[in-house]
């Protein structure tokens, strides 16, 4: 089942891992929805999040803050947040904020899934 909220969709992969198709934008307009959707997943037992940025043209400070919030939730439970198929606009934000030090990046969603298997 796909849960679509604003521009993103959450796809279960295993009991503990989901793929989040971030869609066109993660910014001040939908970051609260992203946070709420991820919190629901954490409550349901999900610990690992693969964020698929292949279609993402906008990631802003509020969007990045919502990802930090998710990271703060799952990292004490040995969960992971990883980035996949990072688009160029997102890469610019990752480089500016040096968040590549925190979030592992994979060229594709499949590569991320393999690493989390």
């Amino acid at each position, binding site marked *: 089942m796909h849960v679509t909220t604003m521009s993103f969709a959450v796809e279960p992969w295993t009991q503990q891992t989901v793929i989040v198709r971030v869609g066109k934008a993660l*910014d*001040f*307009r939908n970051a609260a929805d992203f946070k709420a959707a991820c919190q629901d997943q954490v409550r349901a037992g999900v610990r690992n999040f693969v964020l698929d940025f292949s279609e993402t*043209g*906008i990631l*802003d*400070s*509020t969007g*990045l*803050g*919502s990802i*930090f*919030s998710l*990271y*703060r939730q799952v990292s004490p439970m040995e969960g992971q947040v990883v980035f996949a198929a990072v688009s*160029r*606009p997102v890469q*610019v*934000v990752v*480089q*500016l*904020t*040096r*968040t590549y*030090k*925190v979030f592992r990046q994979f060229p594709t969603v499949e590569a991320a899934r393999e690493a989390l298997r």
Partner: protein
Amino acid sequence: MVATRHRFTDLARITDDAHDLFAQWAEEGAFSPLFDEDKVLLMRLAVHEWLANLVQHADFGDRKPEILLDVYPNGKRVRCVIEDNSRGFDLDLHMERRRQALDPFPDRGMGLLMLQAATEYLDYRRGDNGRHRLEFSVAADQDPWLTIPF
């Protein structure tokens, strides 16, 4: 591209409209090849963060919002001026507060700092016309970064 001006009045649409402009400029190859795609994206991020700040926090009182975006490409450097008719605020004070209050992996408070980090030069003041004016430039030879506590 020569200097260009765009006027926005609808805060609900301004983010999408600004991004559409950048998409149009990308299609037209509007900027110098010396100012590469990553630098255009950095400038777009700076514009986005300021517009997001205006949409979320600016006090326009009973005035109809009017925001003007001027872009002045100049080879390896692009200057942007964003002028608005809000009541404005103390940017330096807000930046300093945000910098001091930044927790590890912060949820909020990174926007203005990201804007500052992305730009080579940044100035905000009330103009003679009573409008508030943010001016910044992004340069091709910048390697900007923002320190966020991890």
